[in-house]
């Protein structure tokens, strides 16, 4: 871009921020309920659990002792567990608040640094997260969690050789099951899908029960990469029928069903789960595919959410926003810009596939080459990409 045009583009961004924020406020309808019994907000679909009540007590204690590492760790890990369960970033904020005493320190204690890295990676601040994780494994090589998160972040960043080294760190930390799953997942991505699937199959039958959900997810994703959607569908459905599925699995299954044109099945599964942005996106795509008039409301809601995220400067939703812009707003050029910017940060299969889809729709096939040459350079294989030009 010509340097002189930058201020104008900044103004454009600001105009969008202002216009969207204003419309967010202006669009909010005021409502004064008449009856005291009227339910004005559903906070949870269930009463407060004993665990949550205990956590609140712990959090209060941690606030009184803000430099207590053990207390802060306990509160923050639990908040992170719930962030994963609910997909609600408020839990990440709660975890970060608990670490307030150490948050800006250059080298906080290893336990705290690991928590900080986990929060940073959840907010897609991968470089800062990697710095923390590398420091933790250097200072505390027996910390299995740090190796595992390190491997995962490196994989997402498209650095498989280093990720594999982190999987080996898991062996040294005594976490053999995790090391094996970690290694097989990377081998599967590197073109040894059949071998990895067999190894994971054996692992699934031998590993303790709490490991199985994750192993099944890795198998399902590998099957998809290997061009076997039916195998993947079966695995997703099994996970969701048991207690091993969560919102992530639900989203992955919905993607697969959408690819197969099963919009009605997606609508049946995801109706009522609209508070989750990722699931609402799939639901909107299903409405679109089915020609369902509910598409309009779903698209409007998504648009409002992406705008709200923009007004606060969030960039975590780029993958979803690119997909929304491409498939629902049908603006391939804008979608390609988003997909490309997302690809700079994340290099998972979904990110590459989306970039290819946007590039083809926008008539700019050079972006397809970018994905292919990256895959080649790291030795990753994906049958779905081969199926496209």
């Amino acid at each position, binding site marked *: 871009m010509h340097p002189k045009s930058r201020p104008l583009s900044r103004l454009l961004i600001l105009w969008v921020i202002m*216009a969207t924020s204003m419309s967010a406020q202006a669009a909010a309808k005021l409502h004064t309920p008449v009856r005291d019994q009227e339910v004005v907000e559903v906070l949870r679909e269930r*009463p407060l659990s004993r665990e949550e009540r205990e956590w609140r007590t712990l959090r209060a204690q941690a606030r009184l002792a803000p430099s207590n590492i053990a207390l802060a760790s306990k509160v923050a890990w639990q908040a992170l567990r719930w962030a994963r369960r609910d997909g609600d970033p408020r839990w990440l*904020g709660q975890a970060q608040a608990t670490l307030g005493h150490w948050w800006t320190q250059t080298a906080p204690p290893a336990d705290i640094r690991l928590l900080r890295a986990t929060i940073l990676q959840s907010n897609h601040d991968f470089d800062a997260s990697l710095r923390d994780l590398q420091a933790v494994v250097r200072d505390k090589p027996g910390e299995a969690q740090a190796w595992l998160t390190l491997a995962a972040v490196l994989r997402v960043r498209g650095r498989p050789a280093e990720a594999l080294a982190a999987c080996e760190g898991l062996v040294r930390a005594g976490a053999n099951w995790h090391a094996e799953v970690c290694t097989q997942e990377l081998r599967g991505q590197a073109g040894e899908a059949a071998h990895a699937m067999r190894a994971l199959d054996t692992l699934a039958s031998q590993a303790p029960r709490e490991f199985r959900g994750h192993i099944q997810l890795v198998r399902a994703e590998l099957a998809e990469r290997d061009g076997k959607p039916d195998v993947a569908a079966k695995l997703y459905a099994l996970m969701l029928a048991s207690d091993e599925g969560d919102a992530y699995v639900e989203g992955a299954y919905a993607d697969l069903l959408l690819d197969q044109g099963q919009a009605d099945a997606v609508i049946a599964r995801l109706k009522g789960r609209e508070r989750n942005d990722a699931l609402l996106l799939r639901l909107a795509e299903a409405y679109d595919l089915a020609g369902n008039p509910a598409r309009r409301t779903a698209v409007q809601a998504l648009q409002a959410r992406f705008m709200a995220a923009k007004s606060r400067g969030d960039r975590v939703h780029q993958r979803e926003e690119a997909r929304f812009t491409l498939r629902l707003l049908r603006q391939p050029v804008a979608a390609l810009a988003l997909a490309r910017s997302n690809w700079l940060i994340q290099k998972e299969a979904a990110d590459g596939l989306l970039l290819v889809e946007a590039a083809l729709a926008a008539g700019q096939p050079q972006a397809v080459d970018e994905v292919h040459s990256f895959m080649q350079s790291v030795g990753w294989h994906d049958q779905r990409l081969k199926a496209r030009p």
Partner: protein
Amino acid sequence: MKMKIQHLAWALLGLWAICMPALAHKPSDSYLTLGTFDSGRVDVEWHVSLRDIDGELRLDVDDDGRLTWGEVRGRWAELLGYMQAHLSLSQRDRPCALVPGSDQPPTLASHTDGRYAVLRWQQACMPTSGDIRIDYTLFALTDPTHRGIVRWRAQLPATTDRFEEKGITVLGGDRPAHRLQFATRPAPASLSVASDAPIPGSGLASSPDPDTASSTAETPPTPACEHCFTSCAKAWSTSAPALTMCSFSSPC
């Protein structure tokens, strides 16, 4: 051995968490509108998510997960006091006083991610005492990722109920304070927003970047803000005449 297994089970968190888009839900935001009048009066309208308020004040007293209007309405005075304690408007280190009895009856607003409490009151600043400083500390200790999206509006000259949009700024996290700057009177509606820290995540900073600096290099030395204001108003005169957001990226 059990400890070891538990520890390993913990480790599962990492792999799963990385797979899942962390922010599958909209994060915590509040929407604050400040309407300034020539008389120094400031009308405050603040929309704050009931979900967030519940996290602090535990409105859902029976813990059934369903917040009723009775549960909210019955705690309204406490809620208002809590919010007012986390928003401070001041001029030259002197607080703009709350106008007694100016708060409005309880009501709610529907935003994209649920219902919000709508808190409305007035504060009295001095008519011509210069900048209004806003200090925003809502949820600062419990959720540093919370943001307040603040919209400034100013009374149009010679009107009583018409406003001109002055700008939006995002507060919270490492940017808790902000100044609303009044340029020299009697220039009509010459408010501008002055940044004293970067806008989080927007890629914009208050310090002049080379491009902005070059565009303001030809500016008469004073008042710099008015110049920015004028140039931006021109830039947008065809598409959005009421929106003047230059001050965000200006070195004013």
